């Protein structure tokens, strides 16, 4: 009797393990963080790209508008891919684009902007990458959408494509 009970427990347990592992196989392995929606934007101070003066994060996000924070670098190839889409988005009046220039050489970055155009209402220098860490970014490019309540509502890892651009447009409507 006791033996049968043990056997029953073991079999149930094994079936459970099988089910879990089977499901685990189908899960994607690429880690995408569970994004807790509506995170506050971090508070920081950063150097402006053009004026080289320190600006406060409160000042940057003070308008009653949607904001898009885009992390970019001149050495990052995928950033070029998404650049035209960013340019298009920047024409939208209800949104302000903020650039974070990630671990870059300032001269190269300026060349990049001159060559491909400047979609950013304000551009900030993130020489050490610490600003991006404050946003919870992995690297370049990465894009955050911030709503009028100053919460991060959406995050795109990697270059944004047509689909992502459409999604952003929907949010900022």
């Amino acid at each position, binding site marked *: 009797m006791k033996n049968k009970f043990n056997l029953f427990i073991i079999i149930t347990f*094994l079936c459970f393990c099988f089910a*879990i*592992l*089977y499901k*685990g*196989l189908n899960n994607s*392995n690429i880690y995408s963080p569970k994004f807790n929606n509506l995170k506050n934007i971090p508070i920081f101070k950063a150097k402006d790209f053009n004026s080289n003066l320190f600006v406060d994060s409160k000042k940057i996000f003070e308008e009653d508008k949607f904001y898009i924070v885009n992390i970019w670098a001149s050495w990052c190839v995928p950033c070029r891919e998404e650049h035209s889409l960013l340019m298009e988005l920047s024409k939208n009046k209800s949104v302000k684009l903020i650039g974070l220039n990630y671990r870059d050489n300032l001269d190269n970055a300026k060349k990049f902007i001159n060559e491909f155009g400047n979609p950013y209402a304000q551009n900030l220098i993130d020489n050490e990458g610490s600003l991006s860490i404050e946003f919870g970014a992995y690297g370049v490019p990465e894009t955050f959408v911030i709503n009028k309540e100053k919460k991060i509502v959406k995050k795109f890892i990697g270059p944004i494509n047509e689909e992502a651009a459409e999604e952003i447009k929907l949010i900022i409507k």
Partner: protein
Amino acid sequence: MLANQIGYYSLILGLLFSFLLCVVSIKDFKNNNKKINQNIFILSFLQLSFVIISFLSLILSFINSDFSNETVFNNSHTAKPLFYKISGTWGNHEGSLLLWLLVLTLFIFLFLVKSSNQPKKYRILTLLFQQMIIIGFFLFVLITSNPFNYLFPIPKEGLGLNPILQDPALAIHPPILYLGYVGSSIIFSAALAAVTQNYISKEWAQHIKKWVLVSWVFLSIGIMLGSIWAYYELGWGGFWFWDPVENVSLMPWLTLTALFHCIMVLEKRLALTSWVVILSITTFTLSMCGTFLVRSGILNSVHTFANDPARGIFILTFLFILIFLSLGIFFIFHKENNKDPSNFFWLSKETSILINNWFMMYFLSVVLIGTVYPIFLDVVTAEKISVGPPFYHKLIAPFLGPFLLFMALGPKLKWIKSKVEKRNSLIIFFAVSVVLTIFVLKNLTTDLLFYTVLISAAFFLFFTTLNELFVKKLNNISQTIAHFGFSLMILSILFNSILSSEIITNIKLGEKYNLNKIEIFFERIEEKKESNFNSIIGHFKITGENGKIVELKPELRIYDQPTMITSEADIKTTLLEDKFLVMNLVKGGEYFNIRYQVKPFMLLIWFSVLLLSFGGLISIFKKKYEK
């Protein structure tokens, strides 16, 4: 081209021989002859030969850089040195599975040859169970990971072997590891056969112990080779990262260790029968489980092979078939012998071995749970966590102290009932260990209490076994050497972690860097062209505190196929410490990032593992377990 065909058809023939073997042995099983049908030997030998032929033809394809073979195309390149062309054969998923098959068939053949004094039905059943595993793997290879896939049009050049795998230690690591890792399959089959035949006896214990030890010795050395590779190729002076792949090889090692300890109880006292069977089954199950975890891509690890869900599902199903089968056999056939249990006196060798098993199972549970728990959590709650070194250290280290103490005391006890002999000398040893440890550690570390307990326990084991080695006659030499090796290993690992020091800095060519009386001078750069990579060699002169100058030449290798930059550490090994220097490019500048480490007792760590394995080796060739 031809080799490709031969290899493929030999595999199919090998599979056919499996079925043939099953038919013939079932017939022979019913037969009342005392001896096994000679045909079985021949068939088993032929099967082995075909697997060898298949394996050789894959090697041949690799040597000839035959890119009509998909596996060769994916993992080789014409510019690679011959040695790495050959080792590339088992450096990939398909080829390594062929190695699995080779070990599986080799072990069953050897088993048949070596077990002539065992009952016939038991041998045949072992063969049948092993053939089941073999058939499973043949199917796995042929269906999901055929190493002889044909490519057309034939590519001109291969993709190349991952540069970090182009390394001598890693070239021999898989074959040796597999002899232990896959070799445990024979223990699995034999245990199942013995249960069905109700043949779990002293004789069986004596006979299977050799196989357990063989697997254990190979597994120990295999793990060590992997660690050595990680030490100078992967890491920054680390040699054990608690990476899932490492854990997966450690788990069968833990059960094997537990197994050959308690098999001695079975051999001597005919006790713990069920436990021995459970351990035998568990060991191979864990090997299979490890294969599943590594090959299916379910885990995130440094070494994961390219993943294909079909493979994962196949191994998973196969694994659970094996588990359920062995569970069924165990519950149906196994009869516990409820012989006089009072024989277990608390102060006896049996009890101390039980305690060994107790701790081993605990360590196993920590490693197993730590490895698979993130998968379970992810599936159930969709939350991802990382389980890394701190987890294992926190759960294992506190138990290591008592474990070492038992390890020192256990062998002093006698079977059935005993008293602690030479109590005085033990107490003296213990006192010496504690005093010594406190004295040594006094101004070394912040975690004084923790390390004191651990290190004095290790010293205690060290002294008692050392004493044994010199004072006693050679009657229990294998155990003493192995335990001595273990204490040496723990001591060197602990002191290594306490005493290691490092300097990390960015440095320019021609610059000098000073810290704590150590001077690092970046003298010059040399460029070299090898057949499969270009290398940049930095020449560094390092002046230690004692004024001695060491020249170290770390290297940056730029491989073309596939394009990858690796940094090769330069290590100066001496008996007591390793000096380790590795350099890296810093983006967009003339600076190099260097790490200089002084790591004491590295050589002793490797040496102690060899001692440990050597102890096991002696035990294999010993006639009988003494006293």
